[in-house]
Every structure is written in C-alpha cells, then in structure tokens.
C-alpha cells in the first residue's frame, strides 16, 4: 500500500482529532492555570463523570444501531426512587440495589419491547418514557428524598483504590468489555450492520429484534447501576436523579464520532468524547467561574462537532 492509500484508508482520523483537541485544551488550561493539570485534583474532580460514562457505553451501542435513548436520565430518577423506597421499607441495601437494577432493566425492557416488537421510532418511544419515568418517579415519591444509607454504601462512589475512585475501575472494566464486544464478536458486527441497513441485516438472518431489545434493556440496567453510584455519591435518592444526563451523554457519544444515523462509531471515540467534554467543563468552570457557560459550551460543542465533520468530509456527509 502506498502512503497515499494508507492515508485514505486510515480509519482513526476522528479519534486523532479528538486527542489533538484534548491535548490542546490541556495545554491552554495548563498555561493559564498550572494547578489545572494536577493529577490529584483531576481525579478528585472526576467524581461526577462516572455515572454518565457508564451510561455512555450503552448509548454508543444504541446510536450505532441507528437508535437513540433519551430516557436514561429519567430512568435514573425512577431507579433512585425504587432504591429509596425499598430501603425505607426493608432497610436492606442489597434488596435496594436489586430493586434499582430491576427497575432500570424493566424500564429499558419497556423501551426495547416498544421499539423492537411494536416498531415505534426510538426517538418517540424514549421521549415518551422520558416523561413517563420521571413522572412516575415524581408521583411515587411525591417529592420526598430518601437518604442516610450508611457510610459503607457511600464508599462505593467515594472510596478509592490506589488513589483512583472505585467507579473508575468499574467504568474501565466495562469500557474494555464493551469495546471487545463491539469490535470482536459477531453480535458487535451485527450492531453495525443493523445501523447501516436494518432490512439487509434481517435478510442476513440477524435477529435484529432480539439485539435491539437487549440493547435497550441493558441501557436501562446500566441506568440502574449508574443510579447506585449516583445515590452513593450524594447519599440521597430523589426523583430528580440524572436530570439532563441524556443530553450530555448523547453529546459525548456524538462528539466521539458515532454517527447519529447509525453504522459508525466506537467505544474509544466515546471515551475521548467524554474526556473532552469533561475537561472543557472543568476548565470553563474553574477559569471563568461561571456555571452557565458550561451548558452553552456543551450545546455548542455538540452542534459544532457535527458541523465540522460535515465540512471536513463533504463526501461522507452526503448520506
């Protein structure tokens, strides 16, 4: 292969671009605020990203199939309420954790069933369950917030091994598993196939409905898991858990190079997307001390990343 051909078939442009952006951002931030690059404070400030990062894995897979899940944040609210109520009635942490996971799985299964069996557009289904999950959480809990789950439980999110927060290990393990699943297993390949052309995937004997159902169900289960980390971090379970998460997660996934039309994307991109957004938020928050700027920048980043992609690769843009 000639060098030119190699350039043309090089598949990691997007990831390379992200790495450059992240390094650039860190360089600027480090120059302006030398303390910004301090590893300890970076790790400390990484606390709030792990729930989102875990969920982003499932959303990446879903978006690659050409779907979307807007309901994960709301599902967290429902899981949090399930957790809190179970704890209130039984006092058992184990049962509460199981209840949260089950609730999430069940919610995801509702999405999955409506999308794969009744064939409703995922955008609409999850928009509906977004309202429904949060609404049920509000109705059930009547605005009560549950707390005091004990020191031990809060160690899940606050504890550290070798100076690194425990949820980070959880995320890393899941990210690796997810990446291997997506790139090395037949089902992973089928997920791309579904995203490119669902009909042809069906004609190839791929059980599209089952794959989709399980993707949305696992997205719900991960919402349950993320809720545990979230509740442990705040020591509070309330119906508003995970508010606005869906947007940030989708932003990270899309910035990470996953095509919103399906068929293209990978876990490495999502991880880089998460990192870029996280560092941007940190930098903006600490340098200008203005919280409002964060949401403006995230919104703009979401639009700009696709716009840039369209401009830089006009040929691929014509879908």
């Amino acid at each position: 292969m000639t060098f030119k051909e190699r350039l043309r078939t090089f598949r990691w442009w997007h990831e390379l671009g992200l790495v450059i952006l992240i390094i650039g951002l860190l360089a600027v931030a480090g120059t302006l605020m030398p303390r910004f690059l301090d590893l300890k404070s970076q790790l400390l400030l990484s606390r709030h990203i792990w729930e989102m990062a875990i969920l982003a894995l499932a959303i990446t897979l879903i978006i690659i199939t050409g779907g979307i899940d807007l309901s994960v944040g709301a599902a967290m609210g429902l899981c949090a309420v399930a957790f809190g109520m179970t704890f209130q009635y039984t006092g058992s942490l184990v049962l509460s954790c199981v209840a949260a996971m089950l609730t999430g799985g069940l919610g995801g299964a509702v999405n999955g069933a409506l999308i794969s069996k009744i064939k409703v557009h995922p955008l609409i289904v999850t928009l509906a369950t977004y309202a429904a999950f949060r609404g049920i959480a509000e109705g059930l809990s009547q605005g009560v917030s549950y707390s005091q789950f004990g020191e031990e439980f809060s160690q899940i999110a606050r504890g550290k091994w070798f100076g690194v927060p425990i949820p980070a290990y959880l995320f890393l393990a899941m990210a690796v598993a997810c990446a291997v699943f997506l790139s090395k297993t037949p089902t992973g390949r089928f997920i791309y196939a579904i995203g490119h052309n669902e009909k042809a995937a069906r004609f190839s004997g791929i059980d599209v409905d089952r794959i989709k159902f399980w993707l949305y169900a696992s997205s719900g289960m991960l919402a349950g898991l993320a809720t545990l980390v979230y509740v442990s971090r705040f020591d509070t379970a309330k119906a508003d858990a995970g508010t606005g998460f869906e947007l940030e997660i989708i932003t990270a996934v899309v910035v990470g190079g996953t095509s919103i039309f399906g068929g293209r994307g990978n876990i490495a991109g999502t991880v880089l997307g998460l990192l870029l957004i996280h560092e941007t938020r940190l930098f903006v928050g600490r340098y200008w001390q203005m919280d409002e700027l964060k949401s403006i920048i995230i919104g703009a980043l979401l639009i700009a990343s696709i716009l840039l992609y369209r401009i830089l690769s006009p040929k691929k843009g014509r879908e």
Partner: protein
Amino acid sequence: MPPFIRVSGLSKSYGGVHALKRVCMDIAKGEIHALCGENGAGKSTLIKSLTGVVIPEEGTISIDGKPLPPGNVQASEAAGIAVIHQESTAFPSLNTLDNIFVGREPFTAGGLFLDKARMRGEATKMLKRLGQNFDIDCPVIELSVAQRQMVAMARALSQKCEFLILDEPTASLSAKETDSLLAIVRQLRNEGVTILYVSHRLEEIFEIADRVTVLRDGERVDTQSVANLNRSALIFLMVGRELEELTQRHEHAGEPGEVRLEVLGLTNPGVFENIDLRIQAGEIVGLAGLVGAGRSEIARAIFGLDRYSKGKVKVNGQMLTGGSVKQAMSAGLSLVPEDRQHEGLILPMSVGANLSMAVLGKLTNRGLVDPRLERDLVEKLMSDLLIKAASQEFPAETLSGGNQQKLVIGKWIAAKPQVLILDEPTRGVDIAAKAQVHRLIRNLASKGLATLIISSDMNEVLSISDRIIVMREGRISGEIRGREATRELVLDLALPQEKEVLA
C-alpha cells in the same frame, strides 16, 4: 428541418470515470426513440443531463432549436421535458392531486391561494385521457404500482410536456399493465409527444420504438431504425460481442437426488394459497409468474422472514416452525433476496464483512471473530465467484452491479446451503455478468444443490430451469418440464384467466 432534441458532444465524469464521452444524438419530433445499453453505459447520466439534475462538463443540449441551460430543473421543465422513473417519482403520503401538481400549482387570481377547482378538473381530465379511474383524494401509497405510474404520467402530461422520458417504466409492472402502458405511450406519440424510451426489455423496444440509440461505456455506439435490427443484432451493439449462452438451453447433467425442500399447503391468505413445492438435490426449479403473483412472498415465508397461517415447510426432512430465519439457515436454507441494494447487501460495509455476514457466528474462536478464518473464507469466495474488487476492505458500494450480485450469492453460498432460493438473481445486471451468474448456478446444482429461481425474465427461466412452476394470483397454476417449456406455455399459465375471456 432540424431535429427536435439535439444532444451534441455531451461529457460527464464522476471521480475520473467517464459516464458520458462526447455523446451526440438527435431525436426527431413525434418519434419514440429507444435508449439501450448495459448498466453503467451512461443512460441515467444522459437522462439526468436532459432533465437538468446533472450539469454536464462539456457539450450542449437544444430543444426545438433553442439551447437548454445546463443543470436547471425548472428550465428543463419549462421547455416541456418530463421524466418518469423506474420507481415512479411520487410523494407516498400525499394524494393524487398533490402528486400531480406539487412544484407548479395553479393559483387563484390573487396568486396567493391554490386553485383547487382547477387542479381537480385538470387531474380528472388527465386521468381520463390515460383511461384511468381511481379516487384522486386517496394517498398514493394506497394505490398500485401501475396506478402510481399513471399518476406520474398524468403529472407529466399536465405540465404540457412535449418530450417525455420513460426510464424503465415497466420494470415492476405485470404483463397486462405493461401492455396498457405501451398502448398509452403509442397514443401519446400520436398526439404529438416525443418520447425517449429506456428499457432493458428488448421485446418492448421492438414493439414500440421507431429508432434506437445504443450506448456503451459512456459512448454512443449507433443509432438505428428498429426495422433494420433484430434482437441479436441489438444485443451485439450493446455488448460488443454475441452471447450464445443466454439463448442456450440448459441440459441437466444427472438424475436428481433426494428431496431437499418440501413445502406443503403453504398459505398466507390474500397473498398466496395452498402452495406445494418439492425440490430435489441437483435440481433447478424456476418459479415463473407475473409480478405480484406472490412469488417473493413465498420465498420470504419459507425463509422465516414472514409468517404464514397454514402449511408445512421441510428442509432436508427437518420441519421448520416458521418465523425463524435462524432455524431455516441452520436447516440448510439460503435466500438471495430480490433487492440486492437494500436487502442483500450492507453497502457501506466492506466486501469481506458482507461475504462473511451470514456465517460470522461460525467463524469464532472463544466467542470472538477469528480474523484469519474470516479472511480465508472471503478470499476463497472471491476467487471462486470471480468477484472483482480492489480489496476485501473496500465498501461493497464501490463494486459494479454484477459484482454486487455475485457478492450476495457468495454470502449465501458461504453458508453451505443445501437449498438455495434466488429471487431475481440477475435483475439489473449486465449481460456478461448475467452469463457468469447462470454458469455459477449450474455449477452449484451439479454439485447437488437444490435451487429455486424466481425470475420475471422469461429467457432466464426457460434457459436455466429443469422444471418450471408457474404461479397465477397467489396459486400454483401449473408445472412444466424444462425441455417442454415454451414462452407461450408459461405465459398461458401465468396470465389471469379473466383476461383471456376479455381478450
């Protein structure tokens, strides 16, 4: 008198490949001019240049002596050029009225509101002229394909079209519908409309056209009066050499073996009823019939893509429960679907990924895809099937139509099927690739594969089948042994009986 349409020196290339090379042609006023050529010969680019969808790099087009501004859809329309595509252009969720008038609606005096009364009147008039009578308020998605084509035709007529381009108008029409379409085309010619008729179906060209222009590899080969040509001469012009294989009858090598596929009383009410099929090892069975007779639907039901209400399907003696593609595949059944672009292939994925798609589950090592197993399989298939691709890493969409078709077949041969169902295996494939596909099918049959071929191409069915089963309106109307089959015999069984009475 200058010609009505004059195309001179037209060139257009896509990414360095010439789609049109200095093409010149003249079309006289009031003639039916046919345009022929294999896939990729440049027909669609020529049409797109005429309608202003594509801007040619070189050359000019003039209509009635006046030059046509390049790349301007509105100007082409205003000049009276209209086109009707293979899948007739339509807005599925809108009604007939909107479909006819969208883009150039008549307005009331003020110019603000639509003149609905006039729209209604004109639409009814146009449809009457076309001999049609259906509800114009019904969304066109609920009309039949032929009716939709008539809507497109009405649209063309209502825009005072003087030059009508028909691009494969009969590709998805039944024989009866084709006949009435050809009659309408003739009537339009008599009314003074000039027509450019593009079709793969050569019989239609001989039936209807006055002259024919042949394109090959983007260049005009010849323009001839149809009266001076015969079928093989026309094919010769198109491919540049004669192809014997197409007309040659297939002689079956040995005696068929044991029964591989057995279908008993398969029924899906309103679609197909009481279908019995038996195919033995090494046998090639053709399933003939008109479009819409329910043949593809049977294939999909057997393969488990669609459900059926009654009946049994046995593959290799194993009973299938229905509704499970996985089960059908593991019993040894493969289906090469009708539409390779949308059903057969995943175009943006690589050639390799497409070829291994159906068997990927078996190419694993501890649950993970084994890249070496996969590469070996793909390489073998590509060399066995003579698939021409720059590399197995390239997306399937970069391949030509014929190679794409071989790709779909390869994908299903990889599953080592014992029964292979091919639905329109050579539709839209050029003549050379067609011959290759046929050779491949015969080769596989001689190795013991039981094959069912669904095809609307009569020559194909007649030349390749050991046995022909004909369907009419969802039922099997007869069976003919390959040697005894003739066009007339098959058509007689395929055509609806009422039509015979009417005729």
